């Protein structure tokens, strides 16, 4: 401090002036120049402090008082006047010295501020350079030690330490190594002044015993801590230590100003440029991301949204989106969970994250209330924890998965529809299921119409609101749709969106009908043909009402595919019904309409066709009169279906015709054998044939590869007849008859292997069970009933093969 040297010199000079003038005054008798002593304090005041000036002034006054001795004017008015002049001058000089020093101090501070401002203005300076220059500026002019700490990336960083004095390096090293503290300790950055640092102060600040030693070694006398501020925020702390002086409140105020300048200088030097450029890069990255990204603060308000997010939610710009309150944004959409339940704002993952939860991604279906457009969004949220630990921000990533979801839903819907369509061949019932399946996934209301007579009639209708089913049905009944007729005629779909008041008024004249449309809340309609082969066989109508949903191209495609699948199913069902009808008719043709009445004989039969109705079986039986008695037969053609049915018909009618014409069982068998053997394909057939004499007293039993008939006599059954070759296998086959004398009460039971091959819990039904089932029976009807009962009790699962039984008994 050069001022001190100057002050001392000025003091010495002042005192020298006093002595010199006093000497002159004493030596110069004729003149009294005592008053000139007053110059001394002024001389001092020019350079020295007020205190030094006051000392010199005191000497000057003392010299003035003493001057009365050598000037010999004590007590005179002249003496007093001169003394007053000296005292007044001295006082004035002291005041002048005081003002001068204050001015000089202000000047110095001004210079410091100016220096700091100059540093701040140097925009090309790097941070270390700024720190060095701030140090140079402040040390030792304003402080003996200057420490700069900044907040960067959530941490406190010791940016610079500048000390002065002989222990400079030691102090700088020690302070650099010392932890700058945490952000919580540094912020809030309250300006702090310790005018006089004492032991207790050191203890309060020391981190440990070694630290307190270090703090003591600094010789700190006074200190100031002020925030470094830039652009309205605290970016760090400026700490100033004085070892020889005490800071005063005005120094604190000044330091605060300084803090602002230094903070700005550091900011300008790009302290945060790196961070901010990273932030800027991140923001740019987010802005250009295809995924919608939003960031919410603790209160759920949006603080950031990229353009994709704004677009997703139907806003022109991110700014407009951010300016809209969350509830208002939510209100723009009817939002639903995947299962269709309404979605509340609180269900969103972002809100859950702010509640400290860890929500899984949420799939949301949102229908824009204004446009009716439906979107699927996958919403994921992650928390950005605050420095205190709890969530501060929620980052939401919103993926528009509409296309994927629609494709998936369409696939699933069509798969389910196909399964449902395949589950039953009762097509009206099936179509009802399809309509139910389409609601509410594809539409709020779905009806399936088929041509009935000269117009289309709804055969199935489903509505998401059960109370509206009747209303919708009534409407369709009452107002046949020309559009649907056209779709059927042209085999081309039709899609009408945005049905509003105006459109209704333009299209419909009937006010009552208009009213009905309004009450049904029609918004969009899709009409697709049900297609089978090249033609449309019906129309599926899909209506959007309550949901406000607008149909898109994807919806139309799904609906058309549904139309194709439903069309095929309906056609199949029709064919199946037709085929079942044909099969039943054919089956009936293979069996006699009714068994003939034969005097002295009772006949009974049982026919159990296998499982499916539309497969004509290969079993047959017949009973007819011949010129030589009665012929009863049971036969079996291998296989099922149309081919077997044709053969069965041929077999039965060949036997019947030959038998009736020739009256010879062997001839009849030969005839059929030849006919079958002539066929290109191997078509074996087995037959058991009983020829009963006209008097019913005897019967000839023949087996052509067929199980032997059973003779039930006195309640016991036994097989009768010789084994013979099956028909159609060999041309040279011949059969041997077993003649059986019949008694009253005897029964003959002819059956096919469907009886013995029947599967039960305990293997096949078999011969033994068959014989046992006939134990104790008498009469044809009883025998047939007994077999039927036994089979029903035994059988497990569906019947695999046809079963035929024909019994006769002698009355």
């Amino acid at each position, binding site marked *: 401090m050069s001022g001190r040297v100057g002050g001392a010199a000025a003091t010495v000079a002042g005192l020298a002036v006093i002595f010199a003038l006093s000497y002159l005054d004493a030596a110069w008798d004729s003149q009294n120049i005592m008053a000139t002593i007053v110059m001394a304090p002024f001389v001092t005041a020019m350079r020295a402090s007020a205190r030094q000036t006051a000392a010199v002034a005191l000497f000057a006054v003392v010299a003035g008082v003493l001057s009365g001795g050598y000037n010999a004017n004590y007590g005179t008015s002249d003496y007093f006047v001169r003394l007053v002049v000296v005292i007044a001058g001295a006082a004035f000089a002291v005041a002048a010295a005081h003002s001068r020093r204050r001015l000089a101090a202000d000047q110095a501070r001004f210079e410091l501020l100016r220096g700091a401002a100059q540093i701040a203005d140097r925009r090309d300076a790097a941070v270390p350079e700024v720190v060095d220059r701030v140090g140079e500026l402040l040390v030792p002019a304003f402080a003996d030690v200057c420490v700069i700490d900044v907040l960067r990336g959530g941490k406190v960083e010791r940016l610079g330490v500048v000390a002065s004095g002989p222990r400079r390096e030691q102090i700088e090293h020690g302070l650099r190594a010392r932890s700058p503290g945490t952000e919580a300790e540094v912020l809030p950055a309250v300006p702090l002044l310790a005018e006089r640092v004492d032991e207790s102060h050191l203890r309060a600040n020391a981190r440990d015993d070694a630290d307190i030693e270090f703090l003591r070694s600094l010789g700190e006398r006074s200190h100031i801590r002020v925030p470094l501020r830039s652009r309205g925020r605290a970016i760090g702390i400026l700490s100033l230590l004085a070892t020889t002086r005490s800071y005063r409140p005005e120094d604190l105020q000044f330091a605060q100003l300084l803090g602002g300048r230094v903070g700005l200088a550091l900011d300008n030097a790009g302290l945060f440029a790196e961070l901010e450029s990273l932030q800027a890069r991140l923001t740019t990255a987010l802005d250009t991301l295809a995924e919608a990204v939003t960031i919410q603060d603790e209160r759920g308000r949006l603080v950031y949204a990229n353009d994709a997010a704004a677009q997703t939610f139907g806003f022109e710009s991110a700014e407009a989106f951010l300016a809209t309150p969350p509830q208002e944004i939510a209100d723009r959409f009817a939002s639903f969970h995947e299962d269709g339940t309404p979605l509340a704002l609180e269900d969103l993952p972002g809100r859950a994250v702010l509640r400290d939860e860890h929500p899984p991604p949420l799939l949301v279906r949102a229908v824009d209330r204004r446009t009716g457009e439906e979107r699927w969004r996958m919403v994921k949220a992650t928390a950005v924890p605050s420095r205190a630990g709890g969530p501060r921000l929620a980052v939401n990533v919103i993926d528009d998965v509409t296309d994927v979801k629609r494709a998936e839903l369409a696939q699933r819907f069509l798969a389910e529809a196909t399964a449902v369509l395949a589950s039953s061949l009762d097509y009206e019932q099936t179509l009802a299921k399809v309509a139910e399946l389409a609601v509410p996934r594809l539409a709020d209301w779905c009806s399936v119409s088929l041509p009935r007579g000269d117009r289309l009639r709804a055969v199935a209708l489903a509505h998401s609101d059960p109370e509206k089913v009747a209303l919708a049905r009534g409407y369709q009944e009452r107002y046949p749709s020309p559009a649907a007729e056209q779709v059927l005629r042209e085999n081309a779909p039709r899609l009408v969106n945005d049905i509003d008041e105006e459109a209704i008024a333009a299209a419909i004249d009937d006010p009552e009908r208009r009213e009905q449309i309004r009450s049904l809340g029609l918004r969009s309609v899709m009409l697709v043909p049900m297609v089978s082969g090249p033609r449309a066989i019906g129309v599926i109508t899909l209506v959007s009402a309550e949901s406000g949903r607008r149909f898109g191209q994807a919806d139309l495609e799904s609906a058309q595919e549904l139309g194709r699948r439903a069309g095929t199913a309906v056609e199949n069902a029709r064919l199946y019904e037709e085929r079942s009808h044909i099969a039943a008719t054919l089956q009936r043709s293979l069996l006699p309409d009714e068994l003939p009445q034969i005097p002295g004989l009772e006949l009974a039969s049982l026919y159990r066709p296998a499982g499916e109705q539309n497969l004509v079986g290969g079993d047959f039986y017949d009973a007819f009169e011949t010129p030589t008695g009665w012929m009863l037969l049971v036969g079996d053609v*291998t296989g099922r279906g149309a081919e077997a049915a044709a053969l069965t018909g041929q077999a039965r009618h060949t036997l019947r015709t030959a038998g009736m014409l020739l009256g010879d069982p062997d001839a009849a068998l030969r005839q059929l054998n030849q006919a079958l053997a002539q066929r290109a394909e*191997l078509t074996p057939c087995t037959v058991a044939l009983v020829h009963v004499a006209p008097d019913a007293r005897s019967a000839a039993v023949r*087996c052509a590869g067929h*199980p032997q008939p059973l003779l039930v006599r006195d309640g016991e059954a036994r097989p009768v007849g010789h*084994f013979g070759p*099956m028909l159609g296998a060999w041309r040279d086959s011949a059969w041997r008859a077993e003649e059986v004398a019949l008694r009253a009460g005897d029964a003959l039971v002819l059956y096919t292997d469907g009886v013995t*091959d029947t599967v039960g819990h305990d293997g*096949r039904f078999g011969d033994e069970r068959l014989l046992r089932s006939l134990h104790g029976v008498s009469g044809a009807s009883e025998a047939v009933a007994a077999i039927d009962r036994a089979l029903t009790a035994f059988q497990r699962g569906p019947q695999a093969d046809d079963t035929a039984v024909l019994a006769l008994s002698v009355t």
Partner: protein
Amino acid sequence: MDPAPEFSVTRRRVGATVVVAPAGEIDLATVDAVKREIEGAGEHVVLDLREVTFIDSAGLRLVLECSRAVPDFAVVPGPREVRRVFDLVGLGERVPMLDAPPDG
């Protein structure tokens, strides 16, 4: 056929002869499996039915077909029930029946 008890067909070659040996029940549900094995077996085939527990008309028809299509075809009829069915339809007299497959 329900229940379809376990059914299998094995095929082995003994010299020039292929022995096809089904095991289980031969009926409409399983007959095609046997048929496939025989069709590719060549001109000397023995159908070994010793492990067969049941044969229905579809099986008989197969035997009949094979007796026509395969120049050297023989059957090892196996269990009594199966043998009885062959007799029933007259196959026993028409198709060569063996007590056991060659070398087996």
